[in-house]
């Protein structure tokens, strides 16, 4: 049998990859990186790097970078809430998850964006749990009915209770790490168990160009020491906060991520790190950051390729759209992004459900994107040799009516070789009219209501729920917040 080929797309030649990495290293050595966090600067200083306490600039030499790369694991492993299901982030594995930290939600009833509430966060977590092609959940919405200051831990609090998948999250404040870590450790049954079986990834975004803020560097340090994987989210905007050429932006992207990676390794050698990002081809007319632009996707695919060359797990914000409603643009950009990400072998692909430049989540789109991700998975599954010979014998078995439908071979393979869609319309025109002439978004909403109405929430056990509630309450009270919204499930 011939081995199935894994379809793959690469944008850069090897010499080009090496040139980009080389320039990135030169950039860190000559120009340096702005490190706002004092603890991180001390780590650099102790490693013998020139640090300037006035400009907060740190120069990083090639040796330290190469040494840090050497120390970084090739793969990151995540485990679901039960600790039983393992996900390997690395090689050419692809895991989709919803785009994180949306500040708004597209309300299906009004077709308008509005601020998300705890109730939306609950629905988001439950739906993500139901989406078979989304391997991870993310703290996808920022609930506006809790004070912004604790919105980071609160998202995690809701997600952990209602969805068993590993979670992609992040900090809004340095003090958020403690309660969030406690929640994760509570689910695992201890800090050491959590270190052994990570449940969450923390995103940390440098500010382009070449700045690691106090908060984001602290997140890297705290996560590294707790054994929590950090996902480095460099986000240059071509021609605005990074060079306008795609290759120029790649140099900056690699430099920012390498600086973050070094911080992780200095904090804890061997710390799990994911080489990720959310750059964009800046729109020179609107001043916006289109995630659905083809150039954005090209940058993503290229740095993922560079990440693979460096033997690192990779991440990208792909499979999302800048559309404001679930229209053709939403499907076009999300579909193209998810497929390209899968072809590029990006290990963690964040974006499902997201629209309007990473600012908005749509629950209907989440379900549509789940189907897109299913198609992407089918694509990279490739074309397999199932039989020997492939087809010759089938023709011998064919009756005079030339009917394949009744062949045992058909019955044996049709479910394996073909994927069934639940939302894409494959009805005849008459059947579609008979079903109420619905758009894909409307069908998605029907499905949403069925899932939420007919399935029971995948809740944590009551004892653990109490523990999580106590951690959340303590966190809220520690900053003088007495009352949290009631979490209505169902």
């Amino acid at each position, binding site marked *: 049998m011939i081995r199935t080929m894994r379809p793959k797309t690469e944008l850069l030649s090897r010499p080009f990859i090496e040139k980009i990495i080389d320039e990135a290293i030169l950039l860190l050595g000559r120009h340096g990186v702005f490190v706002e966090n004092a603890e991180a600067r001390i780590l650099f200083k102790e490693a013998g790097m020139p640090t300037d306490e006035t400009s907060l600039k740190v120069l990083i030499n090639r040796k330290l970078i190469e040494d840090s790369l050497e120390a970084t694991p090739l793969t990151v492993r995540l485990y679901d809430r039960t600790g039983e299901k393992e996900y390997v982030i690395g090689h050419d594995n692809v895991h989709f998850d919803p785009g994180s930290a949306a500040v708004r939600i597209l309300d299906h009833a009004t077709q308008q964006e509005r601020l998300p509430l705890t109730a939306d966060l609950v629905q988001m977590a439950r739906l993500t749990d139901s989406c078979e092609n989304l391997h991870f959940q993310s703290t996808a919405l*920022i609930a506006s009915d809790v004070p912004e200051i604790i919105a980071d831990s609160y998202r995690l609090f809701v997600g952990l209770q209602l969805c068993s998948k590993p979670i992609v999250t992040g900090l809004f404040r340095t003090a958020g790490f403690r309660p969030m870590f406690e929640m994760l450790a509570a689910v695992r049954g201890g800090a050491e168990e959590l270190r052994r079986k990570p449940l969450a990834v923390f995103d940390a975004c440098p500010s382009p160009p070449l700045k690691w803020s106090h908060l984001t560097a602290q997140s890297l340090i705290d996560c590294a020491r707790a054994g929590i994987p950090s996902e480095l989210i460099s986000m240059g905007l071509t021609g605005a906060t990074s060079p306008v050429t795609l290759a120029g932006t790649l140099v900056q992207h690699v430099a920012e991520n390498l600086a973050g990676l070094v911080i992780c390794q200095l904090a804890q050698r061997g710390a799990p790190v994911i080489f990720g990002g959310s750059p964009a081809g800046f729109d*020179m007319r609107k*001043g916006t950051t289109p995630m659905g632009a083809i150039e954005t996707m090209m940058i993503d695919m290229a740095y993922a390729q560079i990440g693979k060359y460096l033997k690192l797990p990779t991440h990208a914000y792909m499979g999302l759209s800048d559309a404001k409603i679930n229209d053709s643009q939403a499907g076009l950009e999300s579909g193209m992004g998810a497929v390209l990400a899968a072809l590029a072998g990006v290990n963690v692909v964040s974006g499902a459900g997201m629209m309007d430049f990473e600012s908005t989540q749509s629950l209907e789109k989440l379900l549509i994107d789940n189907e897109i991700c299913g198609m992407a998975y089918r694509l990279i599954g490739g074309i397999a040799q199932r039989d020997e010979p492939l087809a010759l014998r089938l023709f011998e078995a064919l009756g005079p009516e030339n009917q394949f439908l009744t062949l045992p071979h058909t019955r044996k393979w049709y479910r394996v070789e073909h994927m069934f869609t639940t939302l894409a319309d494959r009805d005849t025109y008459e059947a579609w009219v008979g079903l109420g002439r619905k758009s894909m978004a409307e069908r998605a909403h029907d499905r949403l209501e069925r899932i939420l109405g007919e399935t029971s929430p995948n809740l944590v056990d009551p004892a653990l729920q109490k523990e999580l509630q106590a951690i959340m309450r303590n966190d809220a009270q520690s900053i003088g917040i007495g009352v949290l919204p009631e979490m209505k499930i169902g």
Partner: protein
Amino acid sequence: MESKDRLLAAMTAAIVEGDRAAAEALAAKALAESLDLHEVIEKGYIPGIQKVGALWESGEYFLPELISSAECMKAALAVLKPALAAARAEAFLRGKVVIGTIEGDIHDIGKNLVASMLSANGFDVLDLGADVKLARFIEAAEETGADLICLSSLLTTTMLNQRRLIEMLKERGLRGRFKVLVGGAPVTRKWAEDIGADGYGENALAAVKLAVALGPKRRLG
């Protein structure tokens, strides 16, 4: 006369082309030849930035042209400024602005665009940079006698500080003295209204229009 007209035309062209070196050199020449600075600005440079605005509106110019022309305008005005001050002619300025990215936030691209466009349009802009403490905004506004305080934030979390600043102004009995404009990716008109800001600009050009409408109505000369 003809040479002065040529000089004014060259100033306009320098702004339209975004040629900073030429814009500065022409300003220096205007000073050396003791030209009427009022005329230099009104007939030389301002028509340039107006033309740039028109080219932007018609879709000919994009952000790189718009911003380089704005920076060019700022540079030329900087050359003229000491002489204007000496002649007590700063009144041509549309108003004084204190601008910055708010405490906890080090994202400054949007703020830089707005600051640049405000300067180019004749505002006297004090850019405090990024991650600016709330008290610093107020101190700077008091020190400079600012008309407007412009607050930027990219993060939802730091957006909260916009409300705090307005509360702080009220506590200090200064709310009436400064107009407060807010902007940044997560900021909406609704948010601006909720926190009692004086206005919200969704982009740099909108911010300029807003500042012109809210700023003091001073005339040159």
